[in-house]
């Protein structure tokens, strides 16, 4: 991978990686830092990264960076995260149902959230998600299905409450 291919990867995947991270941690600056780190690592290892694996490589690095970041954040304070969730401009509701879904998604743990984001946003299959998140294909399937059913139940419950 030369610098041209690398810069093409920046153009192609920077938005996707950033979206994946910022939806998870809901902090734009931290998300940018994680994306930057991911691309730095890609640049350093550009000779060993296969051209077809560049995207999943970026997501893998970004995911693990994000997990580290979340662990650090938890150590410092839980309230910070909570406040961030309220102020977060990305989660501005467009309509009621979406707001409800997003609220429910935000209550999921990082793994579940990542599974949904990688599936729905990036369209990765179970195997690819497993590679990125260091999980087996069956684990991906089980965790993702559990998350979806959890969301569905919440949505139904909220709809019943509001109705």
């Amino acid at each position, binding site marked *: 991978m*030369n*610098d041209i291919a*690398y*810069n093409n990867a*920046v*153009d192609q995947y*920077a*938005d996707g*990686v*950033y*979206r994946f991270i*910022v*939806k998870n941690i809901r902090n734009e600056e931290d998300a*940018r830092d994680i*994306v*930057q780190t991911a*691309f730095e690592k890609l*640049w350093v290892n550009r000779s060993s990264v296969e051209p077809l694996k560049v995207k999943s490589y970026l997501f893998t690095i970004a995911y693990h960076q994000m997990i580290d970041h979340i662990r650090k954040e938890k150590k410092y304070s839980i309230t910070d995260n909570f406040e961030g969730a309220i102020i977060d401009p*990305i989660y501005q509701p467009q309509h009621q*149902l979406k707001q409800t*879904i997003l609220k*429910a*998604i935000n209550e999921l743990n990082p793994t579940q959230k990542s599974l*949904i*984001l990688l*599936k*729905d*946003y990036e*369209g990765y*299959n*179970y195997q690819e998600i497993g590679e990125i998140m260091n999980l087996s294909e069956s684990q991906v*399937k089980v965790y*993702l*299905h559990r998350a*979806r*059913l959890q*969301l*569905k139940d919440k*949505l*139904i419950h909220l709809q019943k409450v509001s109705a």
Partner: protein
Amino acid sequence: MELNKENYEEYLLLYIDNELSASQKAAVDAFLAANPNYAQDLKDLQAVQLNPETIEYTDKTSLYRFDEMNALLDPGFKKTLYKKNSSSAKIIGLKKTYIAYASIAAVALWLVVGSRQLLQEPKQLVTEGLSTATIIPKAKDYTNNSVPSVHPVERQMNSNAGTMNEPIKAIETIASTSFTEPVRYTEQIPTIEIEEKAGEISTNPISSPAINSSLAAEPKQEKESFEEINTEDNDRVIYISNIELDGDKFRGITRRLGVLFKRNKTEKNK
């Protein structure tokens, strides 16, 4: 594959996750068509799916990297580049400088030689005449400093002219012979001095106007009279000598270049 009330939810989840084959998808569609009460489950699951939204990473250019920039930033990478190219680059660099020096030297030499040639051509035409002029001072020295040295010449002249011992007469004969016999011109050159010397004393009608005139005028006169023969003789000499000189100089250049290239070769071998 069989869909039933027990396993249908998993298949719905695989359905929305797009993890089913075309035939499996068709089976799910058929099952939902047959059991419309489960269609709501699919709708609920689809409702909690996230619709991809575009979130842009602003200022992507900040992530761009370039190999050259990296070479400047990363000292390790720079070192590898230097190592890769240094051995050959150094030799090439030296070669280039040597070649440059050599070419400059060659051009300079050529110019010098060329200019000399150009300057020499008219000069040598003059020196044809001046060849006498240059000899004249020598002869002058002879005559002024050492008298005995003049005497043999006189004797020679006398022998040529006949048995005359008087310088004036000798001059007369020399003047006459010199005009008539241009071959003896070179021999007569020293005698011109005598002529000059004697000219001051003598009143020779033929030699006096030429002898009494300045030194510069003397060769000119002779030149006019002996131009044809002298140019032929001298031209040959000059022409040949010039080539010889040029050849030597070029040999010198080639030798120097050869030495430089040999040095390079030895450096390479080292």
